[in-house]
Every structure is written in C-alpha cells, then in structure tokens.
C-alpha cells in the first residue's frame, strides 16, 4: 500500500487534532478596473479539515466564486490576491503561476456549475480525462484509459468504455456532471472545490449528484469547499457554513447552527425569504433593497443599508467576533457574542 499524500496525517491522528487540508487566512482580492483598484473580497478566513465539507454561501455577486478561483490559483487577470492560502501545511499563495498550475488537478479538483460548457465540446470525454491523468500522474496512454474507465464506473456511469469515446453533447445533464466529478477526483486530490455543482440540474438529478459528491468525499477523505446560494442544500450536505455578503464573511459556524439559529441578520433574512417549510401561506419576509453590484460595497457594515437592526454604529466597520458556535461580523447580532 502506498502512503497516500494527504490521508496519512488524518488516519494517524484523531480527526480533531488533524491538520486542516486548507486554511485560508485573511484573503483579500481586488480587481483593477479602468485604472481603479476595486476591493472585491475582504479578509476571508476559514479552514477545511480532511473529509469535511464547508459551504461558502452567498447570493450572486457576493464574491464567493472569485474567492474559489483565487484558492484554485486561477483568479481573473486583473486581480490582486493577498493573504495566506495554506494547503496541506504549505502556503501556496506565494507560489509562482507554474507551481500553482501543478497543484491544479492533482491536489485541487474543481467542479463547475454548468458541465455542458465546462467540458470541451469537440474532444472526447476520454481525451479530456486521460490528458489530466497523463499530465498529472505520468500514466501511459493505456493505463490512463483504464483508469479513466474505472473513474467513470466509480461515479456511476454505465458502459464507461463507450462513454469515453463519446462527447459531452451526447450525455444528459446528470451524466455530464458525473463526468465533471470524475475529472475533479481523477488524480486523488486532497481538496475539491465545487462551484454550484447542482444548480443547473433538475431536482431529482440534483439529489443523486449530491449523494455522489458526499460518497466521494467520505470514501476519499476529501476536504470539500462547496459554493452555493442555497442554504437548504448546506444544512443537508455540509458540516460547516461560511456566509458571505458583499465580499465579507458575515457569519461562520456549524451548518446546522447557522440554519437553525442564525446570528447575523443577513443569514436570518435569507432563511426567512424562502417560502415556508411548513407550507404556510403567510406573507414572506423579504430582505428590502437589492444585492449591491459587485465591488460597489457600502461603507461600514456592508449589510447595514438593508438591515432591520441597523443603528448609527453601523457606519463603522464591525470586527469578527466569536459566538457560542462560530463567528459573526455584526454590531447587533441576534445572539450575544462571547467576549
């Protein structure tokens, strides 16, 4: 048995003391737009243990996807990223572009929202899979093909040998996303980033794909960063949740706690805005106003303009404070912070 590059630490030590697979510490990202530097994401910190799923939750334009691209090492060309990104003990933020590229695919797998456009339209599925395997693991053509067929079988694709010869347009939405997952886990990564992996899928298919992701994660002890706008999925699927609003982390905690007893008024607002679970037809409680345009963040507390609890104090920027179960960035949280 060959010692696995990332599970060894976890299997020796108790999970509680295990070194996290990913630690993001005060990650900042700004974009240069027309000679102006626009801060997009401010002081994002979180960590993911091996085998753990952490959700990065927020609405469109809150900076969650761009944060993921920064962790992967493929941010937009006009972006500046600062802060620490520690992967398996090494700070990769300072790595060169080439060194970062080598981590892609081999140590970090990535799953995109729309597999139809995220897979190459005119190369066969097999070509794309074997390219990754040969490039990252140095496999021979034949060995790569065998491994690719195994992978497809593992993600629940029937007749893998035939599918390898086919193209993405020949597959259904669910099958496409399975191929995408096979690609992401093909080189046994320690971290998988999934950007809205089920948003484009039908409800019944979404459930299948979520189950598959969960199986892969536990079987391979993968740390997973799960990017979503859907708090319902978070509660079922992730251990912890990081809630983002307007480029800020506003609340973190165990996903159960965040969904059942949110501390930040924004999280509360998100939960109240969806139609009632019990089928009640009481009027919904929307969050007033609209999501700010990306980069066009309000001063002080960024949620204040839409917040029912705002006070003059909210003109100042709140700091991150610990709560009983996590952290919150708010002057008027729904529960006392722990001093």
């Amino acid at each position: 048995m060959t010692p696995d590059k990332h599970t060894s630490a976890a299997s020796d030590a108790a999970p509680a003391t295990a070194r996290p697979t990913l630690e993001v510490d005060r990650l900042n990202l700004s974009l240069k737009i027309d000679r102006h530097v626009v801060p997009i994401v401010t002081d994002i910190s979180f960590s993911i243990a091996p085998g753990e799923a952490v959700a990065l939750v927020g609405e469109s334009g809150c900076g969650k996807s761009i944060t993921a691209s920064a962790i992967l090492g493929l941010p937009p060309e006009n972006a500046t990223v600062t802060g620490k990104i520690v992967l398996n003990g090494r700070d990769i933020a300072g790595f060169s572009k080439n060194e970062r590229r080598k981590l892609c695919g081999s140590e970090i797998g990535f799953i995109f929202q729309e597999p139809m456009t995220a897979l190459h339209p005119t190369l066969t599925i097999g070509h794309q899979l074997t390219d990754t395997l040969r490039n990252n693991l140095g496999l021979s053509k034949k060995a790569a093909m065998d491994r690719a067929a195994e992978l497809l079988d593992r993600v629940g694709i029937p007749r893998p040998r035939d599918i390898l010869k086919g193209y993405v347009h020949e597959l259904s939405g669910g099958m496409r996303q399975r191929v995408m997952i096979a690609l992401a886990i093909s080189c046994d990564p320690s971290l998988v980033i999934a950007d809205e992996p089920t948003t484009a899928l039908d409800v019944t298919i979404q459930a299948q794909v979520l189950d598959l992701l969960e199986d892969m994660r536990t079987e391979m002890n993968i740390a997973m960063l799960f990017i979503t706008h859907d708090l319902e999925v978070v509660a079922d699927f992730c251990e912890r949740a990081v809630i983002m609003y307007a480029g800020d982390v506003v609340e973190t905690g165990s996903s159960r706690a965040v969904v059942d007893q949110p501390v930040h008024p924004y999280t509360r607002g998100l939960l109240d805005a969806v139609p009632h679970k019990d089928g009640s037809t009481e009027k919904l409680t929307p969050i007033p106003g609209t999501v700010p345009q990306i980069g066009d963040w309000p001063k002080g507390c960024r949620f204040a303009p839409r917040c029912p609890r705002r006070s003059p104090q909210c003109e100042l920027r709140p700091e991150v404070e610990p709560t009983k179960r996590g952290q919150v960035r708010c002057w008027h949280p729904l529960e006392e912070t722990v001093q």
Partner: protein
Amino acid sequence: MLRYIGKRFLLILPTIFVPLILVFLLLRLSPGDPAGMMLGDQATVDQINALRQELGLDQPIWMQFLLWLKGIFTLNLGDSIFFRKPVIEIIPSYASVTLLLTLVGLTLAIIFGVTFGLIASMNRNNPVDRGVVGWAVLGISLPEFWFALLLVFVFSVTLRWFPVAGYNPPSAGMIAFAATIFLPALALGIRQSALMTRMMRSSMLDVLNEPYITTARAQGLPEKKVIGEYAMRTASIPVVTVVGLSASYMLGGAVTIEIIFALPGLGRMLVEAVGRRDYPVVEGGVLTIALVLAMLNLLIDIIYAYLDPRIRYQ
C-alpha cells in the same frame, strides 16, 4: 463518417454543373463566331459553314451541350479551335501554375493569418494587439494588384531579390520555382491573411473565455497544451470557413496576379481563350476550376467534421 463524406460528395455535384451550364450558354449567346474568327476576313461563307460543321457548331445548343457532357465522362473535352490540339492536353500545364500559385498563396495566408491572430489574442489590448489589428484593417482594405505592384517595386525593382516577372516550373528546381512564385503568391494571399488574422483573433478571444478553457487549466494542463490543443481546436473552426472562402476567392483573383507577373496560368489562358471564342478551352478551364473548388469544399467539410463531432450527426 464515411456516410457523411458520401452525402457531402453528392451535394457538390450541382456546384460543378450549374456553373458549367451557365458558361456554356453565355458563350453561345454572346456575339462572335469562332469559325469566322479562325478563317479570317478572306474566308468564304462555304468555308465557314464547312468548319462550323466540322466543329459541331451547326447543331442545336442542347445537342452541343449533351455532346460535350458525354465528352467529359470519356475525358474528351474536344479540340481547341485555336491551337488545334485536344483541350485535355492544353489545360494541365496552365492549371498547374494557377493551382500552385493559389496553394502557395493560401499556405502563406494561413501561416501569417493564424500566427498574427494568435499573437494578437495573446496580447489583448496592448500595443502588439493594436499593431496587428491595424495591419489587418489595412490588409483587408487594399486590393491585390496594389500589393502586387508594391511588392514588385520593392523586392524586384529596388532590392532585386526576385525576378520582375516570368515563371519557372518546379521541374526547373525548387529554388528557381520559389523565386518566381513567392511574390505572386504573397500578393495573392496578403488580403486573405489579413482576413484570417482578424478571424483567428476574435475566435480565439471568444474561446479563451469559455468555461472549458478554465476547466483545462483547473485540470493542471500546461498553458501550451491549453492554448495549442484545447483552445485551438475550437477556435480554428471559424477560421476553416474563411480558408474555404479565401481559396475560392484566390482562384478567381489569380487572373490579375497572373497578368501582372506574366505567369502562364489558367486565368490568363481563360481571358485569352474568351477573346478568341475558343469555346472548348473556356469550357475546359471552367470545368477545371469548378472541379477544384468542389474538391476544396469537400475537403473543408471533412476538416469540419473532424474538428467538430456535432456536425457529423446532422
């Protein structure tokens, strides 16, 4: 795939025959009588009629066409009225010049077009890109004969690197051939290369924004492979369309270039044959061009199907 090629092949047959019918009719409806032209001013009506009968010109037009069609399938395109030689013996030497000219011109156009287009797309919005785009606009706006004259003036008259005109066939040695073909081919290809530059650039820029390119990078593939294989594969599809159009355009544009550089090509041959009302030669020339174009389009269709599997299923 074979079925696809077969289907495409059937579809090109009309593209060969429609121009043939048009040329056949046009020639016969235009004033001027080849028999009269051959025998000169002194000929008697009897002499002319005898020759007309010999040439088959006294038959009704549809009969002449059918006879000619029958000739095509037996590889007998008739005799040239002027040269008094079978057309099938005259055409190859002229056609080979034009084909080589177009082929070399097309190759130069593709090499320059694709390279410049790639360079521009990799340097988006910096001076390199602007320079290339500026050159492409210029290249598209100016006509071939202007380039031809400019090239002759600079490289032949001033620098004396190339002969001013004339033609050496490849059999005379590759260097001698290259010396006479390079400038005409460049003059013929320059506009098309400008077109391809623009197409390559915009197509590449589109493709680089596609999610599957991000996926390829996220897979850890080196940038060389991402651009050279994953992006080029899709970005080249629209360029292939342009190559097809360019080739047909260049076959037509060859006439001017052949005249400027005094190349014994099909274009020049056709112009002269029309002047002499040498029907069989004109028809044979048009048939050759139509065949070449049809083959070219078939080739493009096959390249398409190779590049884009979605096409094969339609």
